[in-house]
């Protein structure tokens, strides 16, 4: 069953456009949603939450159309925004007492367990929490109302490596039972190397690729070679950089001939993002 089914989202602004954004997330998996700043990650997420008026496209969550079942589906969606704070001067207890009233399936016992597990002190004000603790608090709220789909926008941005690793472990634990699915937007690709099952890559408002993580990486090759070898593949490269030793460049695996003798490796997610960004910059 699909937790999230996005088809042909289109949204046009004067200076930016989402163009035919489509991707699907299977229930019980973590999808990393990557792209440079301004690529359209947050616009896509806000479209999923029905916050924007789309020019076209359809969003289905847990099999239901979001536009038609928004209120019902929001009972099953949890969210965390890593870089936006809400009611920072309120205490955790005050905020929880208010938020829980909106959810039909709120489970107080589960909430207490998550507070203990995440070491959250109810008496603390939101402003007193570290960035990682704020995300954990959002997760505690989401999981206590029985959210089946977690939409996390840059949840690890601004966290130190230990806090990031801790959160990534939690994400992985959450999907183990196959009930919860996570869409996790970030530009910190190393986080996804650790925990994502699927990767969706957006650049300049278009989905470049959406696939299982290893399959995603295998669709590319990172080439390195001499200047003379560069001339052999230059036209097929997504983009490349030159240095005193020659070049390194990214190419689609199907465009690469292993017999050419050029050294090829599987690129990291970060390298894929960087070389695509370089292509976008060259096209501007």
């Amino acid at each position: 069953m699909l937790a999230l089914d996005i088809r042909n989202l289109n949204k046009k602004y004067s200076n930016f456009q989402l163009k035919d954004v489509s991707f699907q997330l299977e229930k019980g998996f973590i999808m990393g949603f990557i792209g440079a700043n301004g690529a359209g990650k947050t616009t896509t997420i806000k479209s999923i939450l029905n916050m924007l008026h789309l020019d076209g496209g359809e969003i289905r969550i847990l099999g239901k159309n979001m536009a038609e079942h928004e209120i019902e589906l929001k009972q099953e969606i949890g969210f965390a925004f890593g870089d936006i704070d809400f009611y920072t001067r309120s205490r955790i207890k005050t905020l929880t007492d208010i938020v829980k009233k909106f959810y039909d399936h709120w489970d107080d016992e589960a909430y207490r367990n998550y507070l203990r597990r995440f070491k959250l002190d109810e008496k603390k004000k939101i402003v007193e929490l570290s960035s990682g603790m704020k995300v954990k608090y959002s997760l505690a709220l989401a999981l206590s109302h029985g959210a089946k789909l977690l939409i996390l926008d840059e949840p690890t941005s601004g966290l130190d490596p230990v806090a990031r690793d801790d959160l990534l472990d939690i994400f992985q634990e959450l999907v183990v039972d196959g009930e919860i699915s996570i869409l996790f937007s970030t530009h910190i690709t190393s986080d996804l190397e650790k925990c994502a099952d699927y990767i969706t890559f957006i650049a300049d408002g278009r989905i470049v690729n959406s696939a299982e993580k290893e399959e995603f990486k295998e669709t590319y090759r990172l080439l390195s070679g001499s200047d003379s070898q560069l001339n052999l593949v230059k036209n097929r490269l997504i983009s490349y950089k030159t240095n005193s030793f020659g070049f390194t460049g990214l190419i689609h695996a199907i465009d690469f001939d292993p017999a050419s003798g050029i050294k090829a490796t599987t690129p990291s997610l970060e390298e894929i993002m960087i070389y695509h960004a370089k292509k976008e910059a060259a096209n501007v």
Partner: protein
Amino acid sequence: MYNLMLKDLKLGVNPWFFAMPFMMGALMLVPDWLYLIVPMYFFWITVPNIFAQYRAQNDLLFTSMMPVTKPDMVKARIFVIVILELMHIGAAMIYGLFTIRLYPDLDYHFFAPHLGFWGLCFIMMAIYNLFLFPMFYKTAYKYGPAQLSAIAAAMVFAFAAQWTGLQSTYLSDRFNGSGSSHTAFQIAILAAGIVIFMAFTWIAYRISVRRFRQVEIR
């Protein structure tokens, strides 16, 4: 809607603003003052601060992510403001009763705090609501221009009403006089004021919802 109202009251309204009606209402005890100014403290001080709080705490995004409808969001916000408006007028009315008994022989130059005066206060708040909410919900974010326009409109009405009262001895007598015929007139003005307050606030709600539906939460 009830939960949204509770959220708006608990998170967005500093407890200080629930004490304000009783503090500012005490200005009604000043003898022969321009009493129409008393309820104005509400929209000079309380409302801008409340709207600033909602914006600073990213309330729009916070609320939009919860399972709530846009009409309910508007309705809850309007109810919160109306509750505070009624508190301000109600507290001032109580102080007004003391004023009338404290200074029984006072010759009022401006409107005395009789029933008709409170009708004018309701109309002033009705005009304020009619300008504030529909303008604010064009963006659900920018409250400055909406506040300025609503305050200006309410004050123009208040001072025009008071100026008319000062110019017309007949009106002044009707608003400030005692006796059964004056009282009947004043009750009619109060009733009309309450009806106008409800009607304008309802219209403000309908326009606000229509506009808010077009707003994108960016």
